[in-house]
């Protein structure tokens, strides 16, 4: 399941929705990405731009690939767009599996692929300046390791 939304998400509620009434899930991993104030109080806000249409397609594709690679019983990707403040949630990934290694690996994979393939762009506002966040080389390397 994937969602692109401006509203915040509630980790507890999302997890409950995925697991309630089920007794087959042994391991559930969540990853939450938050707006981090990298310079000690200078980032006043962040704007998340995306490519409507393609974003949803990419998230569906990435989720399907994780489900092909690991025996997942449930998966969820929520990504927020629009204006966010330091401390706000940006992204939530949830994976559930009978065993913990699959849940951990699938969640890390989803984040690595999302970071390099889903069309989102961050702009940080610092005081009266704003700048587009640069892509990190380490994200490309993290995603590349799943190709082996």
């Amino acid at each position, binding site marked *: 399941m994937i969602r692109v939304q401006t509203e915040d998400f509630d980790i507890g509620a999302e997890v409950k929705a995925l697991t309630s009434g089920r007794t087959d899930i042994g391991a559930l991993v969540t990853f939450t990405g938050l707006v981090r104030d990298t310079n000690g109080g200078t980032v006043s806000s962040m704007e998340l731009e995306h490519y409507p249409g393609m974003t949803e397609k990419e998230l569906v594709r990435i989720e399907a690939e994780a489900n092909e690679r690991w025996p997942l019983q449930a998966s969820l990707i929520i990504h927020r767009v629009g204006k966010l403040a330091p401390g706000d949630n940006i992204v939530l990934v949830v994976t559930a599996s009978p065993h913990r290694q699959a849940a951990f690996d699938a969640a890390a994979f989803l984040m690595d692929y*999302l970071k390099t393939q*889903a069309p989102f762009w961050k702009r940080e506002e610092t005081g009266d300046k704003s700048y587009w966040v640069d892509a990190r080389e380490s994200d490309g390397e993290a995603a590349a390791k799943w190709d082996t």
Partner: protein
Amino acid sequence: MKLLYFAWVKQKAGIAEEDVTLPGEIRDVSGLISWLKTRGEGYEHAFADLAVIRCAVDQEHGDLDTPVAGAKEIAFFPPVTGG
């Protein structure tokens, strides 16, 4: 054909979206970019460094060699930074 621009590519090109009719000799994304750069300073600025330009053809990731014939929507953007 619809062209879309995102993030700083949009800011540098000075345009978010446009409808264009391509000259017949343009075969791939690389040719499309060369043509766009003849259309004004904004495009020249936006496409100055192709190493940091990413594209999608009909909402699927492409590269400089991806054919453009028959495409309905081509988008240009920087490397993604979501998550």
